[in-house]
């Protein structure tokens, strides 16, 4: 089936992950820090035990840490792994320190440019930056060729760094609005996702709400990416929880801190978290219920409205 299709792509997270995510896939990770992380989709990947994954993105945060903590990730290729003011992503950190996972460091601009090359169908792209840093001195064992430095053909003597295009197999993103054929609207900061989505071979988008296609046809200048790049649309309210979704709800600092405590403790403590909040929940709605349900979610929604 042609990817560029106006067919209805609405399905459950379970179906989307079953259909599109495979063992060994390179997964493009949407979201940054505590905004619009694709947590519901990450939960589903964990529950289905899709393993030997490579995760790629700019800021890999809590949804990456969950997947690493579940033992499904063999490599991360990224700009940064962490949760900012909430601290380190401890599963990620330990997996690298204990050599259970490969880390391929780039930086944010280089990663987004690699997606830019991918989305334009070109093999590599020049970037200023990284030169003189030790990021170029090391590469993960499984990386074939991390970069190349050439002479600028139009300005002899000028060194230019080239990095390869990155085209993830499957990208997971959480957005505010989508329609049933896959037009997508990201509101507020878009981070690296417009490039990431268009660079990916397939994309699963979870959204706060599904709107009629007419919404996009009458606001076409605000379509972040058109349906051509989207393969599955999953309607999941609060699908970024405990991260935030601009315009809908704030992040849940209490739950993120709770996660961080469990993750820092590691071992049985961390397994208990996964059992309780991931494996033990049939749907993501059950996760939300466990985390305080309507009362808590209304509070986070009001906090967001207060900010706006």
């Amino acid at each position, binding site marked *: 089936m042609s990817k560029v299709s106006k067919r209805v792509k609405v399905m459950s997270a379970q179906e989307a992950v079953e259909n599109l995510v495979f063992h060994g896939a390179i997964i493009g990770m949407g979201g*940054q*820090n*505590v*905004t619009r992380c694709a947590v519901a989709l990450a939960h589903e990947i964990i529950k289905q035990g899709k393993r030997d994954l490579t995760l790629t993105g*700019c*800021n890999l945060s809590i949804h990456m840490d969950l997947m690493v903590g579940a033992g499904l990730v063999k490599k991360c290729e*990224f*700009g*940064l*792994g*962490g949760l*900012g*003011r909430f601290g*380190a992503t401890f599963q*990620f*950190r330990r997996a*690298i*320190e204990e*050599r259970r996972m490969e*880390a391929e*460091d*780039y*930086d*944010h*601009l*280089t990663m*987004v*440019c690699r997606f*830019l090359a991918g989305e334009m169908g070109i093999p590599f792209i020049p970037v*200023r*930056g*990284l*030169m*003189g*840093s*030790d*990021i170029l001195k*090391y590469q993960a*064992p499984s990386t074939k060729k991390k970069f190349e*430095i050439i002479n600028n053909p139009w300005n002899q003597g000028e*060194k*230019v*760094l080239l990095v390869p295009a990155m085209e993830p197999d499957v990208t997971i993103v959480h957005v505010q609005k989508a329609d049933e054929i896959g037009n997508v609207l990201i*509101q*507020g*900061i*878009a*981070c*690296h*996702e*417009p*490039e990431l989505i268009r660079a990916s071979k397939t994309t699963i988008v979870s959204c706060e709400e599904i709107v009629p296609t007419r919404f996009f046809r009458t606001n076409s200048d605000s379509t972040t990416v058109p349906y051509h790049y989207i393969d599955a649309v999953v309607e999941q309210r609060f699908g970024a929880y405990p991260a*935030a*979704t*601009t*315009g809908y709800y*704030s*992040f849940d600092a209490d739950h993120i801190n709770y996660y961080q405590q469990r993750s820092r403790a590691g071992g049985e403590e961390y397994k208990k978290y996964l059992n309780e909040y991931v494996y033990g929940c049939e749907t993501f709605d059950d996760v939300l219920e466990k985390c305080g349900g309507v009362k808590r979610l209304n509070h986070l929604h009001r906090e*967001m409205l207060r*900010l706006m």
Partner: protein
Amino acid sequence: MEKVYSENYSGDELMAIEASRFIKSTDTVILGTGLPMVAAIFAQKTHAVGVNFVVESGSIDPILPFAPFTVADPIIGHMAVRTGSLREVLGCMVQRGLVDVGFLGGAEIDQFGNINSTCIGDPQSPKVRFPGSGGANCIASCVPKILIITEHEKRRFPAKVQFITSPGYIDGPDGRKKAGLKMAKPDIIVVTDLCVMQINPDTGRLELTKLMPGVTIDEVYKNTGFEPRLRGKMGEVELPTEAELKILREEVDPNHIYLKEFSKQPRT
């Protein structure tokens, strides 16, 4: 108006205020999480009302009523003229050369102003793994004025960082040029709770330019893994005024996200 100085401030508060003094009203500043955000918003609310901010997550010229939690806090887009993508800010602004001031931080900063935010020990099998570059390398590579705010501890200031995540002058005055960086001679200013250090572009090394009130040169040397040369007669960092502290505490960081050591006396 006459300035009424206050001695009732914390180390963090004076670091933020001193760093803000390096920001001009005409500057475009790329924000970073933590005290940099406090310093930049404070500058906008005091002496640099015209300053405009850009943020790596895609926010362009937001109006920030107070310091957000992170650079990806949804409020970072508040009243922005555009909320775009990371590429637009790091690529089309920082790399393009439209940003005047950037803030950086890290686990280690050395005498050449190089920063390590990647790891301690062998990168393939690190003793301690940090988050990595994020937007920092791009900012360090392309922005003409770099501000670093950090606590002053010996382990944070080694002679040479274990891993160069974000290049300063790399290994000397021509280090950046040799490496192929177009921005060959950026200004690098380090503000700590003990002193201010600034890069000398002719030596490629940090020099001691000012001391925090009550701090001695010996104390700086005792807490630094290299011996920064003294630049001229050692001045003292100007104390904050009561009005400045009020703005900082009540407007910039009203929820005490960053300035938790509110009542702590300066380290002397």
